[in-house]
């Protein structure tokens, strides 16, 4: 296996009595798009800043491409950062901004000019080399910040919620662009965000953080489909969380006494939470035959909400109120307030999390 681009072991950071990062072990594979995802204050930005060298860890070791960087200042680390506010130098032209890192590394002026031009072309700003940052739009400033960092060919590119300041349309376009850029240049991207959609769409791997700890690391699908904790299940996407009791390795009992198939791995009798995505639910008429092997629970529709492409149903069941999401297909059967129905889902879509 290739050496990880960044390896954190036992890294913590205390500010006074507060542990912003409370012991993290993490290997970030080389050449991929890795996202640190979590709510604000979860320690993801502090982790990024420790890798960049703006903060020093209280304990633990940080290695970049196998080299310990623990107490090295930022200028002596082979990483570059795209800041949330871009941090473009307002008194320099776009070109001078992008050339700054090369100039500091004493790259020859002919080579530097060539690399700056190439970096600006890469972000489609070749024509704005002489402009000041203030003359550019938010999206363009964002691209300059990317070019300014990538021109140095860092071992890892650190991105601190760089899309936060852009409007929705531009943000979505930039998500695709960032991912394509990463694949093209092959540099490891470490992306910090609180936006689960950003993390899911762009990343090869995601690390979910909360309260200074790393809760789960995996590819987007495994994070979304198989959360291992109640926090991860709840934080990423919409999800129904139902209290349940484990019966055996393949069965849980929901509130109201109905049994459901699930993959538990927990000892019989333990109190757990069952997590099911709304889109995994299907609604059937009470007298319809349902697919064999499916879980079922009878309920009454409390509300139907129209979203254009989908309908959301709130269904009251003995196990609690659940939310089901149905695609707006032609000929789809609609249920209204008070209609009896059967909520159906497969055992594989039933994730059991502790707590």
């Amino acid at each position, binding site marked *: 296996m290739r050496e990880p681009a960044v390896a954190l072991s036992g890294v913590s950071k205390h500010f006074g009595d507060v542990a912003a990062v409370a012991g993290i072990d993490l290997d970030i594979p080389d050449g991929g798009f890795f996202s640190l995802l979590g709510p604000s204050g979860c320690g993801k930005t502090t982790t990024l800043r420790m890798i960049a060298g*703006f903060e020093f860890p209280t304990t633990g070791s940080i290695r970049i491409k196998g080299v310990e960087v623990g107490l090295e200042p930022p200028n002596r680390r082979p990483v570059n950062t795209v*800041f949330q506010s871009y941090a473009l130098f*307002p008194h320099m032209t776009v070109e001078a901004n992008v050339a700054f890192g090369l100039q500091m590394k004493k790259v020859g002026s002919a080579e530097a000019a060539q690399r700056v031009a190439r970096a600006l072309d890469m972000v489609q700003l070749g024509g704005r080399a002489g402009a000041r940052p203030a003359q550019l739009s938010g999206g363009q400033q964002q691209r300059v910040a990317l070019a300014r960092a990538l021109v140095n060919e860092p071992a890892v590119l650190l991105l601190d919620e760089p899309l936060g300041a852009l409007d929705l349309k531009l943000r979505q376009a930039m998500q695709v662009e960032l991912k394509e850029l990463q694949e093209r240049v092959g540099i490891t991207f470490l992306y910090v965000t609180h936006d689960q959609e950003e993390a899911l769409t762009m990343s090869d791997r995601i690390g979910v953080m909360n309260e200074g700890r790393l809760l789960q690391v995996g590819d987007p699908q495994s994070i979304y489909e198989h959360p291992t904790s109640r926090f991860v299940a709840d934080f990423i996407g919409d999800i129904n969380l139902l209290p349940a009791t484990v019966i055996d390795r393949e069965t849980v009992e929901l509130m109201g006494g109905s049994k459901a198939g699930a993959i538990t791995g927990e000892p019989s009798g333990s109190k757990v939470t069952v997590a099911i995505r709304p889109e995994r639910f299907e609604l059937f008429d009470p007298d319809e035959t349902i697919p064999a092997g499916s879980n079922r629970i009878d309920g009454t529709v409390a509300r139907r909400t129209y979203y254009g492409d989908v309908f959301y149903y709130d269904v009251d069941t003995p196990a609690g109120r659940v939310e089901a999401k149905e695609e707006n297909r032609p000929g789809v059967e609609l249920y209204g307030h008070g209609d009896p129905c059967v909520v159906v889902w497969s055992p594989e879509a039933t994730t059991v999390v502790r707590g």
Partner: protein
Amino acid sequence: MTATVESEGDLLEEAARRADSRRGFLIALPSYVYLMIFFVVPFGIVFVYSFATRSSTGRTILEDFNLNSYSRLFDPVVARIATRSLTLAVVTTVLCLMMSYPFAYYIVSRGTSVRNALLILVMIPFWSNFLVRTYAWRVLLGSDGPISQISQALGGGEVRVLFTTTAVLIGLVYGYLPFMVLPLYASLERMDWQLVEGARDLYASGWTAFRRITLPLSMPGVVAGSILVFIPTLGAYVTPALLGGARTTLLGDYIVGQFLGARNWPYGSALSVGVMAVMLAAAVAYFRVGAKTA
């Protein structure tokens, strides 16, 4: 049709702009009146007097306008005094800048409460009279003052600083330091420190990041502070009069001497107008340079 709507909109906007500027004028009116009475009119009088003639008894004859007083500005005496004043003003400005920048930087780097306390400390001297504070330096620097006494107690000699250019320099730096600290503080306080992190991230050492980012971005403060110190020190009168010696005549003393001692109001007026012209030219040039670098 659309054209008419557009031009109607333009007319409305134009009317709103005019109403705005009328309101602006009304708000500024008291300041205009104040400046007219206490600045423009007196300066007009000085300007007119600078073309007048001094009678043999020291009276000013307004009927006879000429450029005689201005021709005297090219006297070697004036050149000597002006050079001395200019040097002193430049040295004072540079010393103030060198002392204030680290201090302003330090203030900005502190938390809010410490920051406010330090700013109040900077402003405390303004609570007492400038004249009184300058007199205090006379006591401090005198040959039997505390500094001299400490020097003697430690086995050194008597400190003879009072009534020298050094004493004037100490007094001027002391007096005008806050005028340098405050604009520097204001410009450093507005600074986006993430830019420094950005430079560090792009392999700049701490010193290089300061030289390439912090210093250029704080130039407006450097320019404003330098002008606020340079201009009053160039024409300083009180400090040199109290702390300086008889041999260190400066522009301020010299002009006052023309009005009070030599009773040559036209020449004093011409000197004043000349000094003001130089100051104005210096300020304009300095602002231009500042605007370019910032």
